[in-house]
């Protein structure tokens, strides 16, 4: 049999099948009534007076149930009758009904909210599926309306029943009717024959079942086809197989059907088109077989809606997962550090930074056992010791540890060492370690900076050492020259004094031994030579003393100013007396931190200066006092009534050989104040003067207070 089907051909054949209409036989339309209220009964009787069928009033539930078994069209009963065992009895009775039967139940209840109890009773009947509620007070219209709806529903059930019975009577008919009722108690004498068994098999199939001939005439099908498609058996009988297929699949399915008739079998996926327009994805198959003289297609359609949805969901999940993975990859890639992810058997994911850090071409270079990788990259501690396999940070992370260390690795491409801070952590999923992630940062730059810093430090210290050495050399040279200078000074002084002695000595001899031979003039000249020699000797001695100040070893200690000043005053005694000077010293002067010899020199020179430079005829008045100057320093004031000093000369007076007065009246070597300043400075102090010409001078020296240093 070879037919070439086209959609137009199918439509024609579909139209032909439509003419086959089945008759619907009428049946017993008994209305059962159970109510405990008289007014219910009478209202119903009057309302249904004109309805076909007859009302059968039941006095109790048992009777109602017996009538249901005997056959009834609708049952009306009041909610009050549904109490306890009666409800149970009714439910059981309904369950015994044949499969086509869905007896309409109308429950009469009080208007408004029925009590919770009534609802619960009604609820227990709902599984039987056909329960409606009629509220009191019962009026004519609502009763007839409810009963009519129930009757209509029941009639449809009867029609179905009749069809079933008809097919049972004609087992070889080209269409299959509904199988016999499947419940055990429904057994009838016919259920034993072969057709019945076949029907049972067909109806128990998980999908739709169909047999059709080459023209597209459906010969047999199962209940499932009707239930799923929503077409009645009569409608199905008039339809072409392609009528059940959504339009866009029809050509494809027609081709598959042709394949079955030509080659023997085929299958396809397509949407099944329901009567109400719904589409349900199906998998259809077909196999060629011969039924009597006819070549037919026998096959089944499986609802794959669930599977399709699952597939779709899987696809969506897959897309989500892929997006997540892509996002994760992007995150990993964008990290500034090197990121490695993997398990003990190797690194399976890493970013470009990771490849660069280790000089690897691709992640494949890293996808080896972790302990092998440790050797491959020669991973060492900073001290050069190779890491043992179990010491590797990644291995430790796989054991659940958070491992962070600085290590050195050898780059694969260049063989250079790279300093790495390796931080590895376990990846936990549902409480189990499923891998590890390592985030490694490149320490090379820091290392280089450290090395640069170290070398800079090194250089600096070398420079410092060199500088130190140079300073020492210079100092040594300087000391040498100072010493040689002192030597020169000493020699000069020494050699100068010899002729001085001669000058003075012989002048003295001249004056003493040869006085009679000298006239007044000669005596005067000899006298001048002698005194000039004396002055020169004094000058040289002062110069030597000043020179010694610079390098003499100091022996600092706590000194009582009053005692030191008294000692100095005693040394100057002859001069003070000669000048008839008056030196007043304040009592209770503080203690200072100084060298005794140096302080004595300073005080002597200050006092000598004070009593020396006074106007002719003026008695020198000197006052010595002290005060706390800046913190931890004592300022000693030596005040005189001398000639005073012009402000522009205040500094000059402290220089060597700066005698401001050429007048021989003011004898002196011009070195005393220089000794004062230099001596004070050597002890960490300073010296100065306040003076107004003609009004005396106030010289001062500042010395460390005794409390400053350790006494």
């Amino acid at each position, binding site marked *: 049999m070879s037919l070439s089907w086209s959609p137009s051909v199918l439509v024609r054949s579909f139209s032909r099948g439509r003419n086959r209409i089945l008759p619907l036989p009428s049946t017993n339309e008994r209305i059962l009534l159970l109510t405990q209220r008289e007014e219910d009964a009478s209202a119903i009787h009057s309302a249904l007076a004109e309805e076909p069928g007859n009302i059968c009033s039941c006095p109790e539930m048992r009777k109602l149930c017996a009538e249901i078994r005997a056959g009834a069209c609708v049952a009306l009963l009041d909610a009050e009758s549904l109490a306890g065992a009666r409800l149970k009895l009714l439910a059981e009775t309904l369950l015994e009904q044949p499969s086509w039967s869905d007896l309409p139940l109308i429950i009469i209840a009080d208007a408004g909210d029925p009590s919770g109890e009534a609802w619960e009773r009604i609820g227990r009947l709902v599984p039987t599926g056909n329960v409606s509620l009629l509220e009191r007070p019962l009026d004519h219209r609502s009763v007839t309306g409810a009963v009519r709806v129930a009757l209509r529903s029941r009639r449809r059930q009867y029609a179905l029943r009749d069809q079933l019975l008809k097919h049972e009577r004609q087992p070889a008919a080209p269409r299959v009717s509904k199988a016999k009722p499947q419940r055990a108690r429904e057994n009838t004498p016919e259920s034993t024959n072969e057709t019945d068994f076949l029907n049972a098999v067909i109806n128990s199939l998980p999908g739709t079942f169909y047999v059709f001939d080459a023209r597209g005439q459906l010969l047999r099908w199962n209940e499932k086809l009707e239930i799923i498609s929503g077409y009645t058996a009569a409608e199905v009988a008039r339809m072409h197989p392609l009528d059940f297929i959504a339009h866009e699949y029809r050509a494809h399915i027609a081709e598959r059907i042709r394949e079955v008739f030509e080659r023997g079998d085929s299958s396809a996926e397509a949407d099944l088109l329901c009567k109400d327009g719904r589409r349900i994805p199906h998998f259809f198959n077909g196999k060629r077989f011969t039924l009597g003289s006819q070549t037919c297609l026998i096959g089944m359609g499986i609802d794959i809606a669930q599977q399709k949805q699952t597939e779709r969901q899987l696809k969506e999940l897959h897309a989500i997962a892929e997006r997540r993975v892509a996002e994760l990859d992007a995150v990993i890639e964008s990290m500034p550090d090197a990121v490695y992810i993997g398990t003990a058997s190797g690194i399976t994911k890493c970013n470009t930074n990771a490849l660069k850090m280790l000089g690897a071409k691709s992640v494949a270079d890293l996808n080896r056992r972790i302990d092998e990788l440790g050797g491959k990259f020669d991973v060492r501690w900073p001290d050069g010791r190779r890491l043992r396999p179990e010491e590797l940070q990644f291995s430790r992370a796989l054991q659940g540890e958070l491992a962070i260390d600085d290590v050195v690795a050898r780059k694969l491409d260049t063989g250079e060492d790279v300093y790495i801070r390796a931080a590895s952590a376990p990846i936990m999923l549902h409480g189990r370690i499923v891998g590890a992630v390592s985030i490694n940062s490149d320490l090379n730059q820091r290392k280089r900076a450290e090395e640069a810093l170290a070398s800079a430090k090194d250089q600096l210290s070398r420079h410092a050492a060199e500088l130190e050495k140079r300073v020492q050399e210079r100092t040594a040279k300087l000391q040498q020259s100072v010493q040689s200078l002192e030597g020169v000074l*000493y*020699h000069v002084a*020494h050699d100068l*004094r*010899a*002729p*001085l*002695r*001669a000058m*003075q*000595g*012989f002048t*003295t*001899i001249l004056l003493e031994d040869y006085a009679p031979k000298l006239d007044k003039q000669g005596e005067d000249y000899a006298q001048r030579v002698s005194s000039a*020699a*004396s002055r020169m*000797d004094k000058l040289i001695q002062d110069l030597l003393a000043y020179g010694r100040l610079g390098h003499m070893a100091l022996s600092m200690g706590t000194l009582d100013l009053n005692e030191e000043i008294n000692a100095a005053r005693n040394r100057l005694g002859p001069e003070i007396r000669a000048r008839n000077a008056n030196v007043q010293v304040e009592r209770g002067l503080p203690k200072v931190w100084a060298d005794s010899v140096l302080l004595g020199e300073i005080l002597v020179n200050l006092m000598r200066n004070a009593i020396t430079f006074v106007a002719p005829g003026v008695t020198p008045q000197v006052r010595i006092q002290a005060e706390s100057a800046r913190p931890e320093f004592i300022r000693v004031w030596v005040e005189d009534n001398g000639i005073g000093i012009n402000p522009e000369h205040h500094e000059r007076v402290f220089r060597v050989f700066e005698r401001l007065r050429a007048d021989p009246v003011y004898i002196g070597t011009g070195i005393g104040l220089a000794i004062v300043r230099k001596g004070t400075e050597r002890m960490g102090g300073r010296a100065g003067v306040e003076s107004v010409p003609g009004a005396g001078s106030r010289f001062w020296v500042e010395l460390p207070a005794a409390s400053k240093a350790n006494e």
Partner: protein
Amino acid sequence: MKTAAAHVLHVDDDPGDILLLEQACRRAAVAFQLHSVSDGETAIAYLGGTGAYASRERYPLPYLILLDLKMPRKSGFDVLTWMRNQPQLRCLPVIIFTASNQEEDIKRAYEAGANSYLVKPVDIHSLIELVKLIEAYWLGINQTPDGSS
């Protein structure tokens, strides 16, 4: 008190100082006899009795030496060091008589075996006083081991 014939050797390169000391000794009317040489080398020759100084009669071994430090050729230190190495001169009293009052010189002199250190005064009167003191102390009070003179 030593004998009036006690001799004192003055070693100094400055003829002025030699003359001044002679004058001072005359004015102080000292009892000892002053001999003068003008440098260290000559002093060693005198003390060793060599060369021109071989005659102990003309150049007797002194009882005391006044020794200047800064002298050409052999300095006072050289003379002193040499003397302390001569068995018969080891205990001979030596007074350093110099213009220097440098700490370093003083220390060095004593270390070399000087018995006294005096700085030459500029004033002749001081010098006369000093000469008197030297005679009183070194030739009067001070005791020296026998055989050193």
